[in-house]
């Protein structure tokens, strides 16, 4: 049974990125190559999903070096779910970008950066090695730096500088934690780490793993833009071109979320209570629970509150994105604290991540279109967009209502599962935070809608040009996708359930077994 399929998504993305650079003197060819590449990526991801669903773990050993010594790439339902999510975002966003990004920018850098971003994210989703995770993070970040500084104007340069400085510090901390883990356990392979933590050899001192794992958690929170590491988010999102922002919100942030799930549940969850630090109830994950609750809860509240008073569409959406990632993390905190809810909590987080990854790019693309046609996204200068361009406004409404959680849109199920997980755990804090967050979401979505889309037409809206047909088509397609996944939610739920199973003890055993082989 061949496992080469595991490397297909990153290889396709890498090949496309290189090809886009090679043919950049022929813009039309470059666009075609880029489009074919992203379709190929989606096909590779679909094939991989079909292989690993419902409960297969494929391990690809690079160069056939056996597991703990070589480089391992692993595809299991969790990785496949994240890959499917990025493919689902990447395809429409690229089509939008083909029309929207200015031709010079496309020729020089956009396509290469776009595919390198996909490459880094896919690598991070597939890697079975904590140092490789660091490297893939850097690959993703390198592309993100380029996309944030894309316009190289005053705002973009500053936003990119802030983004790079923060992430370089984050990288140093991550490297420190990775080195520390290697020093303590003598291995970097995720499966081998899990095995070591489950049963440390006699004479080993696993206590430092606690601090190191929390350092890693801080870095992942920085990548995901959780409070108190959210400072880079609004400026970076406002500075990047709309399709790039859609990718940053839809794919890059989810890499941080994925890393929390993979490291937290597959690796650190393996440590038995009391092994790492005696007297620690619930083991390593028991510590993750309250920490994630604070990070997620603070994100939900800060993101929601600040989104209420931001002056522009993009900034409102950027702060909303901070709050929504908080919603993704809330069920994770429940799952970490309560072993019986691991699969359900992770599945809820993944469904929420998917709903956010569809709705937020949709909203950012609407904001980008509004900027193109009306010349501004300042809510003071907008008004009456609903009458001027009903299709655009309708798509915005679908995305906004999905964030709010109105059935039958897919966002409804995201919210439902988050609330269900919180209710099952019987944790009043999580419930109160989630309800407050949901209320804030209703408020800022309706505020944006009232100020931007209803009311008197302002001069900017009155004189705006018609939106580009293709861009509008992409936006409508995304809105239909939000609707379709909500109506046909069952397969999504089953896929997320299969991915959530990875977080359980049985799922971890299957992972370790697939990577390290039978005897090991």
């Amino acid at each position, binding site marked *: 049974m061949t496992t080469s399929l595991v490397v297909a998504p990153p290889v396709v993305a890498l090949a496309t990125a290189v090809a886009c650079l090679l043919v950049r003197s022929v813009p039309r060819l470059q666009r075609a190559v880029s489009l074919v590449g992203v379709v190929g990526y989606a096909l590779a991801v679909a094939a991989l999903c079909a292989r690993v669903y419902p409960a297969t773990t494929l391990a690809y050993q690079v160069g056939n070096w056996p597991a703990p010594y070589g480089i391992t790439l692993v595809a299991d339902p969790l990785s496949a779910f994240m890959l499917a999510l990025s493919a689902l975002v990447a395809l429409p966003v690229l089509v939008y970008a083909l029309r929207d990004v200015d031709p010079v920018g496309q020729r020089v850098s956009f396509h290469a950066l776009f595919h390198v971003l996909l490459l880094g994210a896919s690598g991070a989703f597939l890697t079975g090695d904590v*140092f490789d995770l*660091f*490297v893939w993070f*850097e690959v993703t*970040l*390198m592309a993100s*730096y380029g996309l944030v*500084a894309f316009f*190289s*104007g*005053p*705002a973009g*340069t*500053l936003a*990119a*500088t*802030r983004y*790079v*400085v923060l992430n*370089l*510090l984050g*990288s*140093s901390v991550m*490297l*420190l934690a*990775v*080195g*520390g883990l*290697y*020093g303590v356990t003598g291995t*970097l392979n995720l499966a081998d780490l899990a095995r070591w933590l489950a049963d440390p050899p006699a004479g080993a001192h696993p206590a430092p793993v606690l601090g190191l794992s929390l350092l890693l958690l801080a870095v992942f929170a920085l990548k995901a833009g959780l409070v108190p590491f959210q400072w880079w988010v609004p*400026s970076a999102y406002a500075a990047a071109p709309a399709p790039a922002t859609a990718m940053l919100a839809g794919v890059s942030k989810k890499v941080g979320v994925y890393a929390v799930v993979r490291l937290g549940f597959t690796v650190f969850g393996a440590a038995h209570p009391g092994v790492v630090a005696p007297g620690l109830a619930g083991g390593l994950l028991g510590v993750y629970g309250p920490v994630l609750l604070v990070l997620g809860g603070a994100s939900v509240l800060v993101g929601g509150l600040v989104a209420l008073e931001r002056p522009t569409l993009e900034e409102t959406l950027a702060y909303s994105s901070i709050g929504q990632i908080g919603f993704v993390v809330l069920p994770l905190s429940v799952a970490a604290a309560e072993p019986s809810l691991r699969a359900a909590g992770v599945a809820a987080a993944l469904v929420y991540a998917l709903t956010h990854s569809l709705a937020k790019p949709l909203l950012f693309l609407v904001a980008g279109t509004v900027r193109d046609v009306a010349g501004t996204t300042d809510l003071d200068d907008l008004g009456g967009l609903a009458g001027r361009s009903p299709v655009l406004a309708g798509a915005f409404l679908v995305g906004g209502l999905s964030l709010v959680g109105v059935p039958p849109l897919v966002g409804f199920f995201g919210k439902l599962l988050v609330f269900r997980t919180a209710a099952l755990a019987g944790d009043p804090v999580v419930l109160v935070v989630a309800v407050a967050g949901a209320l804030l979401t209703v408020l800022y979505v309706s505020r944006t809608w009232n100020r931007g889309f209803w009311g008197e037409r302002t001069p900017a809206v009155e004189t705006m040009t018609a939106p580009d047909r293709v861009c509008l088509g992409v936006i409508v397609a995304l809105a239909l996708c939000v609707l379709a996944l909500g109506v046909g939610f069952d397969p999504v739920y089953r896929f997320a359930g299969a991915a959530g199973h990875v977080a359980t003890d049985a799922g971890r055993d299957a992972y370790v077994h697939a990577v390290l082989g039978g005897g090991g």
Partner: protein
Amino acid sequence: MTEVVLAVALGVLFAAGTFLVLRRDLARVVFGVLVLSQATNVYLITVGGVGGAAPILGQGGGAVTDPLVQALVLTAVVIGFATTALLLVLVYRTYQEHGTIDLDDLGEAMR
């Protein structure tokens, strides 16, 4: 003895890096980031053990230095080199765009 010297050096490097990162001058912040990432690299080297023999089969004996961390550091150095170059370009662009790299003056524009 080597361990003590390295531990002290690491402490000084991390302290100096943190101090520089907290400065107002963007160029110093870059140097701080640089010092911190180099401190991390030195720390990684110490993880593999210092003063052991070369890890070649049939050469020497007894304590062997772990070569894996050195490979990790090599990767980290290359990545750090690229990102630092990019960061310096961005700082230069910031100076071109805003005429200053003092973070207090840039504060208004960063909002």
